[in-house]
């Protein structure tokens, strides 16, 4: 599903964020990425998502080989990937419902389906009572759950989640990971970047660790 060969990334200003990453993630896999702050976890996820081009190396998504994913293909690719951003990236002027619905609307799903699926998804993340709130009227953890709902509602082929439980209490964190496990069991590839040792230990899935931009176990 996702393969990387000798991928390196340096940001402008010469900061090396990733160095020589070779990695294979199979279809339907459930993978944790861990590592200290600044190790390159978010960068790795952004490269898979096509929002940061790698400086070197190659990326294979669905058997297609990319050096840099061309701009016109990005919308189609992104509709297949659910991304939970570390900083949420919610639209501040839209309600919780509309933020979640957006990722279905851009795919052209009919309105009645959208309504049903968004409502169900909000129930899963326990935000049904906040559907009409704007993001700035929510607590940190509530915003994070909106971001999760938006990524999952479209039943994507791949879910990339960047620190999805950083603002959630342990009980809720477990419930969210259970949600990820459930969609994973229906065939979705799930990649989660996290610091939460407790979760990694509890679920004991394949885990890769980054440090200073390098894989330290794979």
């Amino acid at each position, binding site marked *: 599903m996702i393969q990387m060969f000798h991928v390196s990334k340096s940001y402008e200003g010469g900061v090396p964020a990733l160095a020589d990453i070779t990695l294979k993630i199979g279809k339907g896999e459930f993978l944790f990425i861990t590592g200290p702050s600044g190790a390159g976890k978010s960068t790795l996820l952004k490269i898979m998502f096509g*929002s940061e081009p790698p400086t070197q190396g190659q990326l294979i998504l669905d058997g297609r080989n990319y050096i840099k994913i061309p*701009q016109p293909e*990005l*919308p*189609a*690719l*992104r*509709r*297949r990937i659910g*991304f939970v*951003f570390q900083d949420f*990236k*919610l*639209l*501040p*002027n*839209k309600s919780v419902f*509309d933020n979640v619905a*957006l*990722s279905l*609307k*851009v*795919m*052209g*799903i*009919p*309105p009645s389906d959208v309504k049903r699926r968004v409502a169900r998804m909000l129930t899963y993340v326990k935000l049904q009572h906040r559907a009409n709130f704007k993001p700035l009227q929510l607590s940190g953890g509530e915003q994070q759950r909106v971001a999760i709902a*938006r990524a999952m509602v479209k039943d994507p*082929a791949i879910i990339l989640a960047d620190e999805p439980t950083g603002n959630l209490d342990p009980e809720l964190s477990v419930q969210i990971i259970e949600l990820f496990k459930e969609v994973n069991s229906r065939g979705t590839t799930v990649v989660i970047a996290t610091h939460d040792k407790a979760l990694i230990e509890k679920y004991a899935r394949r885990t890769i660790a980054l440090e200073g931009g390098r894989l330290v176990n794979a």
Partner: protein
Amino acid sequence: MRKSGSADFVYIISDALSSLKESKGTTALTSLTLGFSLAIFSLFVFVISNLNGVMEGWGEKTQIVVYVKDNVSSAEAMKDSIMKVAGVRGAEFVSKEKALSELKGALKGYEGILEGVDANPLPASFEIKVLEENNSPEGIAKVVGELKARDWAEDVQYSREWVEKLASFIKFMKIAAIGVGVFLGAATLFIMSNTIRLAVYARRSEIEIMKLVGASDMYVRAPFVIEGAVQGLFGGILAFAILAAGRAAIIGQVPSYLAFALEMPFPVPVFLLALIMAGVVMGVAGSLISMNRFLDV
């Protein structure tokens, strides 16, 4: 992998409309700026169109006078012959008697000065008007040349100085009008596009997020197109309202001999439509151009 369905278009429009509601504030500010800018520019167009009319009127007054020999030809024959000259638009006969009475009028109060004069020494004449396109020093010279060749013509007079002064004045006014027009056009375009750019700039992160969620460029553009169109629509209507209100306020104060200055250069609906169209084109183009560089996410 789902392909875009038929609901696409509906979403694009309905989302764009609801985004319009969310950004009422900046849309209103931008509409006002567009309106005022358009009003400034069309005030200029308005003044210039009417000035043009005045200048054309002056042009009409340029006259050539042909004094004719007594008893050589009939007035009708001479008039026909004059009208055949290329560039002549009209000719009016002034008889010897009329010339004398005009002189008497000019000397009013001192007519006594003419008492000793028995025979009428004044010649008859034709006052001639030339066509608009011949109303230049060269055009006039050509007409004068042809008229001089007539055997019944005693003398042809015209004020070379007046013709040249008028021509240079009209030329200057045209250059000045083009200069001011280009400046005002550039200024209003600039102001409008800057305003739109600032409004779009405030929403750059929205554009980024939409793209990250998988929206096509069209989906992201739609709200900006509609917003631009609405801004242009309101801007155009506002500009029209400002001008109409200004004209209404001033029209009672105008002495009647100056009323021409406030004539509408075009029919009112054409004017309104032109303003709206100008506003919409600018609003839409401005929005699209301004947002484009944020699309590359």
